[in-house]
Each structure stands twice: as C-alpha cells, then as structure tokens.
C-alpha cells in the first residue's frame, strides 16, 4: 500500500464564527496508531468526523488509501471503521443481529461467520443472543467497536474508545488494536488516557483550539516524559522541543 | 362595492405588512443586535 492510510491536508471546519479545525495536516501510514490528545472542544471529535466522512463540507482534502472522499466515496467508506460516542447499535436487536445487519449492509460476503468471529474476539459470544438494551455500558462499548470492525476495515477511527471499558476490556481492546496494527491496519483514536494510549499508540498529536500543536513519534519516549510535554503544551500553548 | 374595496385594501395591507417585515429584518442585522433574530 504505497498511499498513506489517511491523509488530511489543511482541514478547516467552521461552525458559524468558531473555527473547530484550523488548517490541520495529518497523515497516517498503515501499521501506525496515532493518539489524538487535547482539551474538550479542541477539535478531536470534529477531526475524526471529517476523516470518517461524517462531515462532508469542510475546506481542505481528505484521502483514505489515496482515494479522495469527493464523491460519496463508497470505497473509502468500505475500508474505514468508525467508533463514535454513541453506540450506533439498535437497542431492540440482539448483539448478533446487530452485527449481522451491519455486516450485510457493508456487503460482507460471510456475514454470519464474520459476526460470530468478531463477537468471540471481544468476548461477547455468551451474550450474542441478548438484546443490546440489556447489556452493560462496557459490553455496549465493546460491541460498538466490534461493529466498526465487522467489515474488515483497514483504517479505524475511534472517538475515546476506552471510555466505559473496565480493565480487562481495555486490555482486550489494546491487544486487538496491536494485532490490527501489526496486520497493516491504521488506527486514529482520540483519548485522555495517556497510559492506555502508550500501550498501543506509535505516535501522538495534540490539538489546541482547532490547530495542531504537537506531532511526535512515541518510539523513544516513555509515558512520564510524554505526559510532561503534553501538559506543557496544554498550559503554555506552545510546543516544547 | 364595499366588497371590492375590502379586497383591494386587503391586498395593499398584505404588501405593506411584507415591506414592513423586510425593514424589520434589515434593522435586525445591525451589529447592535447580537441576539438570534427570530426569523433566521
């Protein structure tokens, strides 16, 4: 895959007078996992929504595996998995029915089998037949992530995926993401949890009032040093080397 | 005859009301007005 998994060029999005995003440039390669940090309202969610073609009119260019989102970008959407704050699941359907529906919607050939595999992968197999409404917050979150992966995307966009997950579930997610990245997938996730981010992210970026103020690989840095740099950015508004 | 006058005056009144509305909207645009104008 020569092209980047995700390329965002000069992304600017305004809501009336407020510039949610101010010419943000980010590119993510297959095999990379990028964690987005930033205060509430810094534009993390907006950036993910723009990258996931949830928001269509913005200035700038978004390409997924070299394929622009100009037209309805159905190929681009087939290769992307999106996890939002909402679960995006039907509360009155069972876990299995939800996954089967979305698998068929995304034209997954072996929908039945794939739904079962993904359920097992997120330890939800035993609750497959229970209606989503009866599941706990953590299980719903895991099911929402499972839904985003059922059509075998190669790019995962996740908005604070760790929220609501207990320790074992977070651990499962970390292993799944590591495997996903190792198999050549690309992940972009927003989070506030520095420790968790360090378990899985290969690179970190910081958004500050809609602008990119830090973009640094995490290869040679440990969590403590990064947290220090991150807070420095937050409180002084300027990136320290 | 009075019906005729009633009809024509109704039309005039309607047009007058619309012009007034346009003026009110235009006045609503001046910077002083930061509240959301009702007819956005």
């Amino acid at each position, binding site marked *: 895959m020569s092209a980047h998994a995700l390329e965002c060029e000069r992304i600017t999005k305004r809501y009336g007078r407020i510039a949610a995003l101010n010419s943000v440039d980010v590119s993510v390669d297959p095999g990379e996992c990028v964690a987005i940090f930033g205060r509430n309202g810094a534009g993390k969610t907006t950036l993910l929504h723009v990258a*996931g073609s949830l928001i269509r009119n913005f200035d700038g260019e978004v390409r997924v595996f070299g394929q622009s989102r100009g037209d309805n970008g159905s190929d681009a959407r087939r290769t992307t998995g*999106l996890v939002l704050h*909402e679960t*995006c699941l*039907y*509360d009155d*359907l069972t876990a299995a029915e939800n996954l089967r529906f979305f698998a068929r*919607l995304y034209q997954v050939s072996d929908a039945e089998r794939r739904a079962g595999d993904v359920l097992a992968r997120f330890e939800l197999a035993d609750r497959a037949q229970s209606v989503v409404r009866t599941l706990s917050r953590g299980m719903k979150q895991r099911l929402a992530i499972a839904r985003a992966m059922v059509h075998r995307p190669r790019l995962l966009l996740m908005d604070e995926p760790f929220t609501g997950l207990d320790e074992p579930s977070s651990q499962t997610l970390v292993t799944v993401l590591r495997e996903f990245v190792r198999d050549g997938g690309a992940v972009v996730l927003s989070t506030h949890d520095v420790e968790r981010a360090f378990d899985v992210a290969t690179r970190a970026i910081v958004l500050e009032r809609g602008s990119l103020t830090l973009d640094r690989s995490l290869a040679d840095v440990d969590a403590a040093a990064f947290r220090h740099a991150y807070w420095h950015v937050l409180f002084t508004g300027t990136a320290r080397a | 005859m009075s019906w005729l006058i009633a009809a024509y005056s109704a039309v005039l009144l309607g047009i007058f009301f619309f012009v007034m509305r346009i003026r009110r909207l235009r006045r609503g645009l001046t910077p002083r007005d930061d509240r959301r104008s009702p007819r956005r």
Partner: protein
Amino acid sequence: MLQTARAVLEKDFRIELRTRDAISAALVFSILVLVVFNFALDVNTPEMRRLAAGFFWVAFAFAGTLALDRSFALEKESGAGRALALAPVDAGGIYLGKCAANAAFLFITQLVALPLFVIFFDVSIQRAGALAASFALGSIAFAAVGTLFSAVAANTRMRGLLLPILFLPLSVPALIASVETTSFALGNAEGPSFWFTLLVVYDVVFLTASVLVFEYVLEES
C-alpha cells in the same frame, strides 16, 4: 440497492416484531379516532355511512404519522442512523427498505383495525379485492412520503410536531384517492379507475423522487 433494501427491511421487521411499537401505536390511535368520531357525530345515519371511508382514512393519516415518526426515532436514538449514512451503499436502498417496512406496518394495522371499523360504522365490504388494493396503494403512498419526511423531521428540534405539518398537505391527493377507492370498495362510490391510477402515479412519483433525494437527507453536513 435491493440487497440493502432487503437488509434494512428485515432489520425493521425484526425490531417491530420484538417491540411492536409502530403497529400498536398506530392501532390504538386509529381506534381512538374512530371512537371519537362515533361520539362526536351520529354515525348511524345513511349519509354518515357513505362517509365511513373518509373517517377511516383520516384516522389512518394521523395514526400513520405516529408510526412513521417512530421509524426514524429508532435510528436517531442510538445514533445508528449515522452508521447507516456511512455504509458504502446507495441511500436510496436504505429508503426503500424503511419505506417497505413502514408500508407493511400501515397495511397490517389497517387489516387489524378493519373488523372494528366495520362494526363501528356498520358498513359492508362489497368488493374485498378493491379494498385490499386501496389499502395497499394507500399505505405505500403514505409510507413513501412519510418515510422521507420522517427522516427530514428527525434532524430538527420539533421532530414529532413537524412531521404531520410537512407530510399531511403533501398527502392530500393520496388521501382523496384512498378515500374514493375505499368507499368504492364499500359500495358507496362509482368509477374508481381514475383514483386507482392516481394512487399508482402518486406512489411511483414519490418513490422515485425520494430515492433520488434521500442521500441528501441522510447525510450529516
């Protein structure tokens, strides 16, 4: 496109079988309206019996909006609507699936309410075939426009209230045609062919228009 429509249709059916929200809401509401008509007007006079079809369809016009409002509420509540908008499929397919489901729910509600209607208004079904056709085409007509506008209204603050305001004026031709064809089926009117053709034209026009326009309604700009 059809494959998507089938998936969405089955999904809506499965949810409806489990919750039975749409059908029960529409059924209870239409029965209520028929009962209220009975109290408000002395229904047992011959003239009133001639208007029975009108009462029936007025009850369904309003009951229909309840069921249709439900149909997109469930997409909005859990945010599943966004996942639908993002699926690499033609939005028209999603529309057709939901529209077919809504038409079916309306049709089923009508059949279930029919016996009560016959008892309340003391009418006799002369031509069952015409009645079934009138119900079917009428339900499709209401579902075609109703599904589109329930998606439109789902994006606004006044969701529940806006749907009837947008939907009922547009359904006037379908309402007139349905009432005329139903009263023909009840033996109260003649020459229904024009009305059946109008219903078919109405269904085709609004199904195609909605399929073409639906992607704009689904998208979140």
